[in-house]
């Protein structure tokens, strides 16, 4: 929830090259270059303190918005092919149901999402880098609790042959809220 100190790489299996970049992290430079959204790209955004707003853009595209950094991820189902255009913060995501039918109205199982073609950014806000070669694989699972709460658990693997020695594996959880009363879009921040 707060930006870690420069040089804090705890829990991330970085390479030496990544450490050099992290050691040189300068948020003022990112701000000057208009790169404040480096820590809001797909490999990092779900770990940012944020709310999600999820809706179907069309029958084959799930839209995931974050209020932190005001980002939008598009998860494409079916036979959608990556466009291969200029890399963006959220890259290009192909989604499929691991068990069940795909697209809108899917009847169950985990949602697997593979994201590539990401614009280089930060895995952690203090400048721990991921490269354009990074691949994000996610498994989204929805479940209910005995008290009626509903949660999404996202198991996430980031592979990056340049900056990670092994995959960076995390699991995060999001709780369903009754309405959008707490939805508060904010711009990216480099600090």
């Amino acid at each position, binding site marked *: 929830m*707060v*930006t870690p100190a420069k*040089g804090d790489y705890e829990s991330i299996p970085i390479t030496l090259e990544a450490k050099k970049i992290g050691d040189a992290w300068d948020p003022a430079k990112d701000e000057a270059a208009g790169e404040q959204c480096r820590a809001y790209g797909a490999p990092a955004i779900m770990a940012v*303190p944020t709310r999600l707003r999820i809706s179907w853009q069309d029958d084959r595209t799930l839209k995931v918005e974050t209020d932190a950094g005001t980002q939008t991820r598009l998860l494409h189902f079916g036979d959608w092919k990556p466009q291969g255009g200029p890399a963006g913060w959220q890259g290009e995501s192909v989604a499929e149901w691991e068990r069940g039918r795909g697209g809108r109205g899917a*009847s169950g199982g*985990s949602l697997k999402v593979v994201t590539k073609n990401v614009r280089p950014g930060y895995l952690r806000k203090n400048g721990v880098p991921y490269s354009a070669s990074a691949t994000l694989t996610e498994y989204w699972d*929805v479940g209910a609790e005995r008290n009626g709460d509903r949660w999404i658990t996202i198991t996430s693997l980031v592979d990056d042959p340049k900056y990670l020695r092994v995959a960076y*594996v995390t699991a995060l959880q999001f709780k369903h809220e009754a309405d959008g009363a707490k939805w508060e879009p904010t711009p990216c921040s480099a600090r």
Partner: protein
Amino acid sequence: MRLLRLSGFALLAVIVSAPAFAQFDLGGHWARRSNQDDMESGPGPDPVDYLGLPLNAEGRARGLSFQYSAVSLPEHQCGYLSPFYIVLGPFGLAIDRVLDPVTARLVAWRIGGWVDRDVTTIWMDGRAHPSVNAPHPSGGFTTGVWEGDTLTTYTTHLKAGMIRRNGAPLSDQATMTMHFTRHGDLLTARAMIEDPVNLSEPYVRSRVWQLDPTANFGNGLSAPCEPIDELPRAGAGDIYPHYLPGRNLFTNELTRYYNLPQDAVLGGAHTMYPEFRKTLTGYQPPEVCKRYCGCGGLGVACITDGSGVAQGGR
């Protein structure tokens, strides 16, 4: 940094229901792969680090009274942490099937214990939970059901203990629900603790493991624990190490190390939510990382522990 790991809430316009099939094999050796919270899992959290814990006033007061020396008392030396520690601890999981010797049907899953956590048996045969007056064993009492391709477990009869390994309390009235889901060779568990005594809201954590048939966990149950007098006065029986209200020596520990305001350090449900970030406007992190900087394995000098001293080759 630690706050960064707290998850926000989600607005879910799309929810899917799970199918009534596709159970998976939970058995095997699962190595911990989660790249989260290494410090909490390994060396342990700082004292009075209640960030992100939905402690109520009673839970916070009890936590602040905790003194580590209490664990050295002979009557506490052989105590175990609760089953919630499955998603907090540093070790892998060794999970076995328990089969009915006659029918060979699966009766339970058994999650092997660690040196500081007892065995957790997940009964799958439909048995009821014991009476509320039944004893509370170290491993609690757990039943499980398949909900589609997710194993959901429910644990009662926990012993009073810690919800975080720094004395943040867990009462014997707490219950735990876990959800195990497998993706290829990855196993993810989400655990929710509800404690009407110490928490104002449920507390949720997740963890990932990876199937590793070659694993040789050296972390199973230790040899039978034998209490001894570890401290000169610990066996005297007339002292229970604790802090009186307002006298805890570590309430400013995280403020000193990370510039965090004490409102954040002392936790509470409000520290779990994204909007808590607004109260931290103007926060200035330490100029550079000075402890638990975590670049171990790179073969370069790096601060890998709380000493503040860079050590080479780790």
